[in-house]
């Protein structure tokens, strides 16, 4: 079963064209992983597709690190009745 963290890392790696094994929870999307603003938009879109959820744009874009994204997505999955782990 893939954990939320694994799925978040896989999407991040795909959008930012990185190796998933090099992505750490403490990594900042912008400062450490080099996400530009347009890639942030794509990341949010792809997280929504991956997890089948709707995220508030402002809240989603205020998430700075991979670990915080995992927490945020887990919380949204819970609120929207979606199974977070696959």
């Amino acid at each position, binding site marked *: 079963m893939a954990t939320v963290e694994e799925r978040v890392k896989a999407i991040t790696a795909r959008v930012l064209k990185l190796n998933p094994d090099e992505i750490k929870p403490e990594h900042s999307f912008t400062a450490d992983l080099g996400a530009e603003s347009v890639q942030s*938009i*794509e990341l949010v*879109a*792809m997280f929504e*597709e991956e997890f089948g959820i709707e995220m*508030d*744009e*402002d809240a989603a874009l205020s998430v700075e690190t991979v670990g915080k994204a995992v927490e945020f997505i887990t919380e949204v999955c819970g609120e929207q009745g979606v199974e977070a782990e696959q």
Partner: protein
Amino acid sequence: MRLILLDSPEEIRGNFYPLALSRPLWELRCGFTSLEEKLIAKLGTSDVAYFVPDYMADLYRAKVNHPVNDTSILEGDDLLVVDPRVKADGFNVATSGPSEVGLDEQGRLLYARVAKNDLAKLGKDDVGKFIAAAKAKLPNVKPAVKTWQYIWELILGNCEQITADFAAAGRDGIEGKVEQPNVIRGGKKDIYIARGATVHPMVVIDAENGPIYIDQDAELHPFSRIEGPCYIGKKTIILGAKCREGSSIGPVCRIGGEVEGSIIQGYSNKYHDGFVGHAYVGEWVNLGAFTTNSDLKSDYSSVSVMLEGQRAIDTGSTKVGSLIGDHTKTSIGTLLNTGSYIGAMALIMTTGTLLPKFIPSFAWFVEGVVTKGFGKGKLYETAKTAMSRRKCQWSEVDERMWDAVFEMTAPMRNEAIKKGRIAMLNR
């Protein structure tokens, strides 16, 4: 006689989107002035009241000094209720006389002249019921009145309308400041430069093929070329641009590059190079450097436009550029296809390729697809900043109206976002 402007039904207003998403139809421009100003000039009245779609009533009330959606005006005087689709120049209906209701071929209201003594039988609590009762109880006629059917007709009629408006204004000559050297071609009777306007050196004003009206406090920077028929609005700055024939630039714009046969509503920026032709651009639009639209297909066939993405409509014209809604921003190098519809409050970040012909309102067009982007909150923040730069204020009333537009335009946007997601997943 009291003139009541009653905005058209939604199915007709849609033919004037994206500009009409945020304003009643009579606020649209053609020539020097709005459709309302033309109707008022034709009918010669200053007693005016309005009925607009509910979602824009509060904002419109804050902008005008006449009653808005106030049913108390449906009594006390002879009334002339007019649909703004009616073209003022051919509207030769007497403003007073016995009651009659003018209908189009589909039975939709064009005008209703209601004598004061007939008002009691129509009721006054609801304008919709008032009109329905007028149709049922008053004589109906099918008048020979011309109407505007689609927004691009304003663009295509602009050349002729500028010439007519120039004649109607009855002004010519130079009241502003013209610094030398300059070149003025054509008869000076075809040029009017209003008080407070400044023409810098090295400007060409070419009225050989039509009149040119430079309104108050406008400023023409060096190397600008203005070809008539052309109207430059109040406090607008032309930054070395080529303003080709048939262009109406509303107030407080900043215009560079090349503009041809286009209407710019006002308060918009196209500061840098790039071509905008046969386009209608809304308010608070910013076109980034080298934003360019096509207005002619390479096979010279007539241009079709996707209105709100529902259906492609053949304009019947070989020259139609872009329709761009209020508050939309384009990035540098944006390339707009012939007959493009770019909704209001959209943000276009291009990758240098030609855009799709329909981009919905509030879309964030990123990396070749429509996305939700950073949401409408960020777009509102940008709108607030843009307006404050011109000493205008974004208010809660603006926000409420735009929230309603956001909801109205959601189906088309959501569909486009869905397609965008699929494209992203397939990359």
